[in-house]
């Protein structure tokens, strides 16, 4: 069943002609009462869009992704799927629509299961009717492993890193989800192999209309495949917008600093922030970035910045921008 972009308009809610598939509204996730991993996020991802969620460790991007998947419960706020709040009693059905691709393909596959079993697992859990073998073969070839039969009886340790990641992607594709959430999908793969996996994600978007949310710390990856970029810092999205705009004309001082230290030839002056990425258990008052901001103003310690709303434009949560 191929989902064409045209038929997608039947599902989901239209907003200015866009079809919103998955999103978050005022989402907050607090651990142990103190660690505010996600501290107020509004997000909307359109059908067939590739959004990159970038930030350093501790910024909450992985927690946000896991909450969108239903693997974590929000402390307040909502996860929206096709404009309706997520029904936590129907999580299993939700899983068929929104799938996960993890960072480490070797760890993500049970070493005792063959490739066939790994891909068929989803089908068996959801008792999908139909010819299991044909469905598995189809998913494997869509993920680029051809001829698929050759891989049925292989074990994960017999495959290369790139092939393993393709198996993980096939396992997700076999359920024909609408959304793929990929957490650092290429960071544990060899450099020369990353391109093929990224290319695969792009192809899946073009051919299947798949919506992809990529969580990564690699701005180059975002430049490579993302339509929009959302930069997170200490649990909030501090800047969001079309990739070309955010990465070439960043408005938020944090984004500017991040971009300046990406290793590149003939770059402008590097803004190397001092100190460590801070602790989500002790979020600073006012603008959460103010202790490390190279262009901080006096009002930044007390200003209350609103959550960046939804919409396609380029926005940043900074006093200097407003």
């Amino acid at each position, binding site marked *: 069943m191929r989902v064409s972009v045209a038929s997608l308009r039947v599902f989901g809610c239209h907003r200015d002609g866009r079809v919103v598939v998955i999103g978050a509204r005022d989402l907050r996730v607090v651990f142990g009462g103190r660690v505010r991993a996600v501290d107020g996020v509004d997000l909307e991802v359109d059908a067939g869009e590739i959004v990159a969620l970038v930030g350093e460790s501790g910024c909450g991007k992985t927690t946000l992704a896991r909450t969108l998947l239903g693997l974590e419960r929000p402390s307040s706020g909502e996860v929206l799927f096709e404009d309706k709040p997520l029904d936590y009693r129907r999580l299993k059905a939700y899983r068929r629509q929104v799938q996960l691709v993890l960072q480490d393909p070797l760890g993500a596959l049970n070493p005792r299961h063959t490739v066939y079993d790994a891909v068929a697992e989803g089908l068996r859990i959801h008792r999908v009717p139909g010819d299991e073998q044909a469905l598995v073969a189809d998913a494997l070839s869509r993920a680029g492993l051809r001829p698929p039969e050759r891989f049925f009886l292989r074990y994960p340790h017999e495959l290369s890193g790139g092939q393993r990641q393709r198996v993980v992607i096939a396992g997700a594709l076999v359920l024909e989800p609408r959304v793929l959430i990929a957490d650092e999908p290429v960071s544990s793969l060899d450099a020369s192999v990353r391109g093929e996996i990224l290319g695969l994600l792009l192809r899946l978007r073009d051919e299947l209309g798949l919506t992809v949310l990529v969580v990564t710390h690699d701005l180059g990856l975002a430049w490579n495949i993302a339509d929009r970029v959302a930069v997170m810092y200490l649990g909030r999205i501090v800047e969001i917008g079309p990739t070309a705009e955010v990465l070439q004309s960043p408005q938020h001082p944090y984004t500017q600093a991040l971009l300046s230290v990406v*290793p590149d030839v003939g770059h402008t002056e590097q803004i190397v922030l001092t100190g460590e990425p801070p602790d989500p258990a002790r979020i600073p008052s006012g603008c959460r970035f103010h202790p490390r901001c190279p262009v901080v103003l006096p009002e930044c310690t007390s200003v209350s910045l609103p959550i960046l709303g939804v919409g396609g434009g380029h926005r940043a949560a900074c006093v200097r921008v407003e």
Partner: protein
Amino acid sequence: MSLLEWRDVSVDYAGPDGPVPAVRGVTLSVERGEVLGIAGESGCGKSTLAATVLRLLPDSARVGGEILLDGADVLTMSWGKLRAARWSDAAIVFQGALHSLNPVQSIGKQLAEPIRLHKTAADPDARVRELLEQVGLPASRASAYPHELSGGQRQRVMIAMALACGPDLVIADEPTTALDVMVQAQVLDLLTGLVRDLGMGMVLISHDLGVLGTTCDRIAVMYAGRIVEIGPGLEVFDDPQHPYTRALAGAFPRVGDPAARYAPVGLPGDPPYPGDLPGGCDFHPRCPVVMDACATASVSLVDAGVGRVAACLRVSS
């Protein structure tokens, strides 16, 4: 005299089906005050090459060629001289070092260990404080335990440990992998600053050509145990001559480069297993610009510009 010189070095590991050639005929040198980058992916032999400098390979490995550390061949050194050389002449920061700290000892104690072993300072504790400051950590952290430090801080501790006995040469194997981009910048700044201030020589090993391009004076690219390209850092990154280097550079797209938008660059297949090499040019099965001759010709490093060499048939033609 170069600080470090590898002369036609080869390393064979003992494999289940015979020797596995991890390094095949590498010739490279590092001068004082220079940062040499070695670029490559898993299986290319870069970590093995680094380990040869202090003879840290297992006994079953056979090492050929000469490795001259300040003129003296490490491979023929007596055991006593080798032990003395280890850490006080050359030190290595290993891959995944931030996980190599003993979790039940304070970092101050662990830093003091090489100092005590080599008796390089009268007051080890004072030296420990000095080292911590050199790597940008407050001296008070000497009493902290590894789990209390962040990844970036642990990496700094490993660098401090490498500096403990005042070596002339530091080899850092993937020092910034697994670190955030901002912390990576801090660590790279630290490393280049140390080379500048202490006049050391440094070898930086990484698969991230971007990192190497912006910090190294020269870069050598390794593939399947051989060097396939050498040149000045920025030039190798900006204008690669060898198709493999081009693919490696493409894997880290430049933000702002319109050609990289929606066009990920990747190679089919995998970095080769050293025991299972194709004939001819090692890279030809994956090469995007392969020619017929590549499958059988023997390829060696040829001139590819001022101060540059590359091992590719297309370069010589």
